């Protein structure tokens, strides 16, 4: 109950600040990136952190979502909600089609295969003239509002948290801990891995739709594997297997990105160092698999 009140209060406060104009364009853009990054990080964390399957193709699913929502709203003239549904469904479908064959692979092979699929999605998008080819689509109407962003972030996080806390979630975590052992215990590992992959892809597609309808332009180049690495940095920094960790890291990385806007190379060097140093000194990430809650204060 308290959480709900706090969330509502936060939502209203930000909404008020936007309406009154305390939060100018610059802050609004960063706020949007923050929400999108949270959705991306939390959904990738489901695949990488909880299921233990290293996927490097998250940007590909984001691209599928972004493009299919834009096709719906801009080319077919459907309302935004239809665009978002299309984004979620198409990304989930892409996740299923890619997940079923690749999730048979383990560890580093899976990482490379998902990276490859992400790049294939990008190359295919580049070659479809209907959606602008390499130039992408320009002039997307700005339909992503703070309400959409806030509700989207909360719903994505809640769905994933509840999934993890369910019996499905326990099966998923058991796969991360020991795949062979959980298979022996009678868990259909392929099914749960695909499930986690599809849910992760679905929310990446959702994030893509929100992204496309805020930033006016999408092009295949935006969704290259560097974008996937961005999300990976958040997940690794926050802790593989900690949702609150992913949220905190997503917020931190967004702020860092905004602060280093004029020095993009420095930002990437920092990302690189984060990956290396975290893996060497704290391979479980800042939060490990613990969750941050206000209860630790009380």
């Amino acid at each position: 109950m308290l959480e709900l009140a706090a969330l509502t209060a936060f939502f209203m406060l930000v909404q008020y600040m936007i309406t009154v104009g305390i939060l100018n364009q610059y802050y609004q853009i960063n706020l949007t990136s923050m929400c999108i990054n949270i959705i991306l990080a939390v959904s990738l964390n489901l695949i990488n952190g909880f299921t233990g399957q290293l996927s490097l193709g998250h940007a590909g699913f984001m691209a599928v979502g972004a493009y299919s929502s834009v096709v719906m709203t801009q080319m077919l003239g459907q309302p935004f909600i239809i665009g978002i549904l299309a984004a979620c469904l198409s990304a989930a479908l892409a996740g299923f089609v890619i997940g079923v064959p690749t999730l048979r692979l383990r560890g580093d092979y899976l990482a490379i295969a998902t990276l490859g699929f992400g790049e294939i999605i990008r190359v295919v998008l580049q070659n479809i003239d209907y959606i602008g080819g390499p130039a992408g689509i320009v002039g997307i109407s700005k339909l992503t509002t703070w309400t959409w962003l806030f509700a989207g972030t909360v719903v994505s996080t809640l769905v994933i948290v509840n999934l993890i806390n369910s019996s499905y979630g326990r099966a998923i975590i058991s796969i991360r801990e020991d795949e062979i052992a959980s298979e022996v215990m009678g868990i259909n590992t392929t099914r749960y891995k695909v499930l986690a992959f599809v849910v992760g892809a679905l929310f990446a597609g959702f994030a893509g739709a929100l992204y496309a309808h805020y930033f006016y332009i999408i092009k295949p180049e935006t969704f290259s594997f560097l974008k996937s690495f961005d999300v990976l940095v958040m997940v690794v920094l926050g802790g593989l297997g900690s949702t609150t960790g992913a949220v905190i890291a997503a917020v931190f990385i967004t702020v860092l990105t905004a602060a280093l806007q004029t020095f993009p190379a420095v930002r990437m060097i920092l990302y690189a160092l984060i990956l290396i140093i975290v893996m060497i000194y704290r391979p479980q990430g800042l939060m490990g698999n613990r969750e941050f809650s206000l209860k630790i204060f009380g």
Partner: protein
Amino acid sequence: MLEFFQQAVNGLSLGAIYALIALGYTMVYGIILLINFAHGDIMMVGAYVGFFSISLLGSNILVAMIFAMVTCAVLGVLIEKIAYKPLRNSTRIAALITAIGVSLFLEYITIFLLGATQRVFPASAFPAKYYNLMGIVISNKDIFIIVSAVLLMIVLHYIIKRTRTGKAMRAVSLDREAAVLMGISVDRTISVTFAIGSSLAAAAGVLVGVYYNTINPLMGIIPGLKAFVAAVLGGIGIIPGAMVGGFVMGILETMVSGYGSSLYRDAAAFGILILILLVKPTGLFGKNNGEKV
């Protein structure tokens, strides 16, 4: 038919480059089971060292290549000591994430220091000549690339099969613990592997400069990934496999560009990877080892 042979010739020189890079991947994987994601970027550093030794020191292409190879051998050993060695006993995922970190680091430190702009590889270092062999055009660049790649492969083969270091490398990759018991210094052997692999990548970097005429800080990514595909295609960890895989990838790529659309050539590479991983994950030359609990 003539066009087919022309494409095959073009593919051979590209394939030779991929094979050289793939060798480094496969050697490192064979010995510490790590996909050295930064390998393509070591190639990029090699290309830059070659570029500067030609444009600033005025050395010829062979000296530039040796220079690049020595620099990158040192770089490879340093990377292994600083970034990979502390993780030798942690999970493979952790090591892979670190490798991605090293890769990003090399790319963006180069952008930071030298700028992101493309540089033209000095043409004076290698004046182009074209020969016509029964209708097939071969440039001296192609010949240079293929000959130097094949020579390096012969040297590598000699090192691995005929020297004590090579024997140690084979032993460590077969069974690390047994190798330690036999008195082999594993650390030293891993360092030598990184040094050799990185110097091959550096040579490939200089050859890429000759082949494409331009170099940039992100040039290592795509050839690196394709070389990885080549290594998987041949069976990762297997040295002749990497050579064959590299040539197959190069020829396939030029065929896709020649007969299909050049826009799809990168997708084709990944398509092959996924196909191989699904049909025969151990690669063309690989043996299937059952999983042990």
